[in-house]
């Protein structure tokens, strides 16, 4: 029983991370049709920004300061990416994606240049470093923080999308960008906004990934990105709840498979993806006209 709970908590913790990364990717893809390969770099930048703050200011205060810094760093980088890289290539969709591939290579390398290739250790405040007892299972507190953060983000995004004008524009833009523009809405600003929002979530993911692993290294974001892609594809690109469900599924499947056999976890995700894609072939080719 306690193993089951532990596995579930670990799986959901991982799922939370996936969701933080994938939600931004999914929003960007849904609205702009851009598959953003630089998203992992946003995660890494957020992570390093947070780590730097916490390195200077110890304890809970450092963490409290690191949070807005990580979010802001991710958002700023993403907004800049949209303005400087994505927007000028608007008429060249493939090149947009290729440019993000270039960024995805360059930014982690830059991080490595500044902070070195070796992992930097996070020192967690005492209250975070411990474990919580749930029905006999000792679960690291950080996982609850992760899950809480993901749920908070899900809730916030859901509110943003359903209750605000900005959300209205995004939801409408996913359906028909031209018509949104024809109603007098500046779609490009919405694009930048969504990119920044995704970047903010990625920055948060960078911070939390550091807490989860206890350390950060330049390539962390990129390895998260691959699973986030899987989640986005499984969650039917552009759908927030779909992304959340897919993230939970991937995290849980991975952990439970890992428990069965040490190497099976990641492979099981691949098998899951292949299976679902094959069953759902039609959707990916686009809805019928």
């Amino acid at each position, binding site marked *: 029983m306690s193993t089951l709970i532990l596995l579930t908590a670990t799986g959901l913790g991982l799922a939370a991370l996936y969701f933080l990364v994938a939600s931004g990717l999914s929003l960007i893809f849904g609205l702009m*049709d851009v*598959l953003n*390969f630089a998203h992992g770099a946003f995660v890494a930048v957020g992570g390093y920004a947070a780590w730097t703050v916490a390195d200077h200011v110890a304890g809970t205060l450092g963490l409290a300061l690191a949070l807005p810094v990580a979010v802001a760093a991710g958002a700023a980088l993403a907004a800049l990416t949209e303005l400087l*890289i994505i927007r*000028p*290539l*608007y*008429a*060249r*969709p*493939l*090149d947009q*994606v*290729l*440019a993000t*591939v*270039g*960024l*995805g*290579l*360059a*930014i*982690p*390398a*830059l991080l*490595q*240049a*500044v902070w070195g290739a070796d992992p930097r250790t996070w020192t967690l405040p005492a209250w975070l470093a411990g474990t919580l007892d749930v029905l006999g299972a000792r679960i690291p507190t950080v996982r609850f923080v992760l899950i809480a953060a993901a749920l908070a983000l899900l809730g916030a995004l859901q509110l943003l999308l359903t209750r605000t004008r900005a959300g209205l524009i995004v939801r409408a833009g996913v*359906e*028909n*960008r*031209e018509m949104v*523009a024809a109603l007098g809405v500046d779609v490009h600003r919405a694009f930048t906004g969504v990119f920044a929002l995704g970047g903010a979530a990625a920055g948060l993911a960078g911070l939390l990934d550091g807490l989860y692993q206890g350390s950060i290294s330049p390539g962390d974001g*990129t390895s998260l990105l*691959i699973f986030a*892609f*899987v989640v986005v*594809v499984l969650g039917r*690109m552009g759908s927030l709840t779909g992304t959340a469900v897919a993230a939970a599924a991937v995290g849980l499947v991975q952990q439970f498979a890992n428990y069965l056999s*040490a*190497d099976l976890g*990641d*492979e099981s*995700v*691949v098998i899951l*993806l*292949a299976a679902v*894609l*094959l069953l759902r*072939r039609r959707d*990916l*080719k*686009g*809805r*019928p*006209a």
Partner: protein
Amino acid sequence: MNHVRSLMRPAGRRAAAVLLAAAALYAVPYSTLRLPGVFDGPLDSPGVLQLLAVCLLFAGLALSYDLLFGHTGIMSFGHGLFVTGGMYVTTILVNHAGYGLVPAALAGLGVGLAAALVLGSVALRVDGIGFAMVTLAFGQAVSLLVVSGSPALTGGEQGQTLNAGAVPAALSGVRNTANLYWLALGYLAVCAAVLWWLTTSVPGRVMRAVKENERRVEVLGLNPYLFKLLAFVVAGLLATGGGVVYLLLLGGATPVVAGSDFTLGLLVMVVLGGAGRRWGVVAGAVLYAYADQSLTRLSGSASVAALPGALRGPLQQPLFLLGVCFVAVVFFLPGGLATLPARLRASKTRVGHGVRTRNGRRAQRAGSRHSGLSADASATQPRSPIRRSAPQAGPNVLPGHNAASSTGAAEEGVTPHG
């Protein structure tokens, strides 16, 4: 005038150029030429030959990737897994099963072929973004298998040195670097030959057509799936062979080839050089591999160490420089290095005539197929492999781009933004 000349150009000139290049490359290990600033020693020194060998190997790998991306229009993020397969299957069979090098390599190729058939037939059942993701995930699975699957067999993060006893004397030792160089050159030659042979064949034509307009191919009565699978299998087999060659060049297997950066690197090489343009791809790959290798070395040199920290750091990261260059090429040189000659010629014309009209450029494109194919981005990307619809056409869109995207949307019947 240009297009007239290029139409009249005898096919023999091309063949002569290829032969000349091949002969020059073959003769490199006999040359003591020094290129200060480019190479540390004379051409025949082991260090330089090793560097050149890696460049040639990557040129071959990039050609194999281009068969998919530039020629058939499918974007795979799992190409590195074939290189990994060739490398690791051979190593494991040699080190742990006591096979000879040749049988092990052949077995590696067999595994590569089987893997390409199986993965290809599964992954190609989905299009565009789905295919990219499935191959990415497959690549990741192989990467994890290699790094953490069974360290006793694969050597985990460290990789594994190839059992020295199994390597023929001619391919081991610093003195024999020239042989390794020729091996890499041979691999490049094989890749180029296969690519040439395949692309001029009937199925090669169909592959090109699939890239341009998949639906139209279907309506011609051909099943695009089979042709994509053929391209995938041939490319996979070539990459597997590249893995074996790389193994010999390095003297051991390294998990680097399994990482997603490795496949992305191949994509970068192809785009850098010019997708679908053989000379361009070779040039892009050689440039990338050279930069990758020598930047790493340069970073350790005294001149860089003397730079202030803010500059030194990034310069020590080849991937940073390559990534930035890549973005720059995507931005300012759509179609890659291969379009440079045409661009230079065009800018010369502009100087001569004052204004370069769009029509003028188009006329030139019409005349010369080769300078034409990537004279602008629309020609190199008639359909985007990983987007689900055409972009909204803004007022700043070139007619050419729009042509490509609007037909795409209309034919796929997917116009969520119509």
